[in-house]
């Protein structure tokens, strides 16, 4: 039986030091909804668990410089209850709120969702589409990186030894902009996304899409931006032709695998469908703000 130690440091430096000291078998505990499952299944046998939730800034939501700073260990339920955040970034909030059941929402965090580095992470497409960044702290201090830079392969992140994600930053919201996230699962709840699509867009004063970002989940080794999909709808009012181009571009961006949750063919087709539908929702929301 492996000896597991548990630490709950109260500063970022302390946490980073503990992670360095713990070496290869040290693991960050944020919401724990993935870590404990892996522990239980015997897929992980950490020597040290570093609970970062008591590090200042890890939990809580604040508005700063016109944008939002979300403690990366803030449980989904807290994020869902933040009215101002929900108003500004409905797509990000709905994506976070799709991570697991109500019970999971009581614990699951964006840090965990991103650092588990699953290509199916629900929060990632919405955050990437939103141009969100991560504040990463570690032995050499703080750095900031775009969300899409975190996951580099299934189960692998770009974080260096001793680093962990402390905060998520969402940029200031432009006028006439909105976002949306949709995923496809076999049931209505409790499943891992078979495909996920996040769309974030900004309209000009005439209701024409001036900027659009589309990110797709579960159709490649990592959640990734689909630049062509975004470009397909820029300069349009999301008419049928634009939607068809978006569908095409989203499908072209897919490099999925077939597994127990879905086939290559299905994932590819659904990516197009969800990109269209999410774009329509985001467009409707943005128009509603015009």
């Amino acid at each position, binding site marked *: 039986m492996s000896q597991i130690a548990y630490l709950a440091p109260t500063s970022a430096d302390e946490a980073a030091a503990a992670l360095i000291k713990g070496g290869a078998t040290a693991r960050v505990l944020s919401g724990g909804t993935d870590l404990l499952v892996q522990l239980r299944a015997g897929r992980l046998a950490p020597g040290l668990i570093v609970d970062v939730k008591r590090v200042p800034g890890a939990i809580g939501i604040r508005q700063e410089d016109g944008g939002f700073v979300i403690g990366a260990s803030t449980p989904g339920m807290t994020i869902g209850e933040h009215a101002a955040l929900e108003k500004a970034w409905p797509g990000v909030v709905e994506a976070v709120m799709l991570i697991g059941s109500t019970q999971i929402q009581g614990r699951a965090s964006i840090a965990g969702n991103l650092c588990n580095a699953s290509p199916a992470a629900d929060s990632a497409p919405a955050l990437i589409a939103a141009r969100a960044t991560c504040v990463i702290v570690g032995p050499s201090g703080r750095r900031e990186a775009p969300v899409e830079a975190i996951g580099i392969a299934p189960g692998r992140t770009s974080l260096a030894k001793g680093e962990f994600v402390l905060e998520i930053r969402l940029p200031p919201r432009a006028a006439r902009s909105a976002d949306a996230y949709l995923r*496809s699962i*076999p*049931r*209505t709840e*409790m*499943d891992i996304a078979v495909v996920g699509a996040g769309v974030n867009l900004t309209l000009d004063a005439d209701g024409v899409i001036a900027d659009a970002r589309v990110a797709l989940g579960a159709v490649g080794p990592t959640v990734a931006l689909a630049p062509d999909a975004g470009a397909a709808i820029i300069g349009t009012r999301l008419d049928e032709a634009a939607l068809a181009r978006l569908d095409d571009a989203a499908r072209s961006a897919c490099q999925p695998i077939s597994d*127990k*949750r879905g086939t290559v063919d299905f994932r590819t087709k659904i990516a197009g469908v969800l990109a269209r539908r999410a774009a329509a929702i985001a467009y409707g929301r943005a128009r509603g703000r015009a």
Partner: protein
Amino acid sequence: MSEVMDRPQTLNLKVVGTRPIRPDGADKVTGKATFGADFSMPGMLVGKIKRSPHAHARIVSIDTKKALALAGVKAVITAADFPDLASEEYEAGESAANLRDLALNCMARGKVLYDGHAVAAVAATSSSIADAALALITVTYDVLPHVIDVEAAMEAGAPVLHAHLFTEGLETKPDRPSNIAKRNELMRGDLEAGFAQAEVTVEGRYTTAAVHQGYIEPHACVAAFAPDGQCQVWSSSQGQFMVRTYCAKILGLEASNIRVTPTEIGGGFGGKTTVYLEPLALALSRQSGAPVKMVMTREEVFRATGPTSGAVIEVKLGAKRDGAITAARVVLKYQAGAFPGSPVGAGSMTALACYDVPNFSVTGFDVVTNSPKVAAYRAPGAPISAFGVESAMDDLARELGMDPIALRRKNAVRDGVKAAYGPTFRNIGYLETLEAIADHPHYKAPLGPNQGRGVAVGFWFNVGGESTAAVQVGEDGSAVVVTGNPDIGGSRASMAMMAAEVLGLPIEKVRPIVADTASIGFSMLTGGSRTTFATGMAVTQAAQKIVVDLKRRAAQIWDVPVEQVDWINGAAVCLDAAKADKGDLTLAALAAQSARTGGPIGAQVSLTAQGAGPGFGAHICDVEVDPETGHVTILRYTAAQDVGRAIHPAYVEGQIQGGVAQGIGWALNEEYVFDSEGRMENAGFLDYRVPVASDLPMIEPIIVEVANPRHPFGAKGVGEVPIVPPLAAVANAVRAAIGVRMTDLPLSPPKIRAVIDAR
């Protein structure tokens, strides 16, 4: 027996048919009820199982020395610690089991036959030490080719699971072993002539995936083996006597030396009608000298306990233009898992049970495969064959341009018709269920785009069998009802209600108890929809015996002939006008005088209940299909069923709703997924996908009551029937919504999207 009612009492009932709070309710809603894993003993060890990572392999060697040497490890067992049983069919109350297979399923000997098959077990002072001990056991395997697909397993060149297995039921005895354990056939009339008469024929080949019962409580038990050979087992199962019998046989013990106490059971649906842990826990306790607790993980439940069969169903129907079916041919190929014994027999017998067909053949194949040995699952075998037959019936109705209910009515079995499986139907309520759905507003409600409506029917025999019940009257006139049947879905309530009805007591004065194997007589397990019928019959008869005794006592007190005493509303009433001034003698008054009138008041009845009335159900399902994502939403569901008489209507409705929900899961998402090595890929609730609350609408039950003359209150079994129609009801609704027949379950979104793209 003159003291027993000879026809069902259906009038003037005070308790039966009402909806009282269940007697065990408070414990269940406060967390106090003790389920399998909740029971503990001082000095208890933790038992865990080492399982095969291979679907099929010879066990070359098992080295347990390092595990035994680990501090805190108190016992390590393998098949060598169990007697090597001969192949023997044994009646354990419900259905025959082969004891050797049963023992080998609990612990592999020489060969592992599926991923997850137990090869060794340990008992240690803590969970983490037990885990460490498992890791220290070295098993060397010689991996063999495996086969899981049922038709692949039937092929001549398939890897053979059992060298001694020769197909039973063939005209000529086979000369080489096969994975086809048995071929059975039911037939009537002249099939060829029947199809020759047909003006319309439909044909289909359907498949279903292996699905699990999915009870939320994993298997759990505590076993204590004393040095004198006396054992105690506390376990969550569908039958404490079943556990006792199987443990005795597998370990070579006397049944009387094993006392099995049933804990509360967190769902079974047939999956807890056999043993997995109990014999191992006893063997570990024998070796260690301490009580041993074993609790499965969810992964173990999926990998190593009974799902039901994945299957292939072939159906051909022939009919006249007016809808009269002239011929039916059904071929059923069912996975049995690692050992023979799929429910293909029941699947064959139920396949055409709703229809009066002059010419038919039903051929069934029981096929062993490198997957967990199947266990009973709610109406075992019936939903699978019904999926094929009811899908074909839907196609036939469409082909004929006939309303699907009208087609079923046209060919319906009714009283006096000989069932496809043999006996002649009496007092059945099938037509009444068809009328109930035909007349329901649901059937006429308008549908929107991408929506469709499906109809399907289902049948289950329902069984009786052996039960014992005792009723004891306390000195204050309250009563205790003791039975030997675990209460899975609220049966304590119906037992107490039937006793209260006969005794004339309010339900609150009757306390039902589920007793251990040493405290009540033999009772077959809770399954087959038999408890309310058979055990209810024993309870009723015991209460009736008490009423006879109470009348005798009252007659003695009043000094009148016993014929002058009646039992009305819980009291003896003197019919002799001259003595009417003496007033009534209540049960409490009689109980208070019991010492002077013959001693304590109580009665026990052991019986083999015959005459379980067959059950029929007819369902309507509405779906909406998202043509782009392939997602199916169940919009509305209505299920009519003949239950004979609903003792506690709320729990009858619950059985119907629960069975429908399981059937919907089977239809839409549930399945065993194996990788190329034969390992289960989705051994968890996350990817196995049982329906969650947001997946389902309200499920409207329609209780149809055509009394069963053989039950004191007219009850028929309820629990099995509701899972039979939903597979086809959903598939037929999807057919109506998308215009294409889907034949392979589950109807998961990728399959539906692919079919829509191809249409």
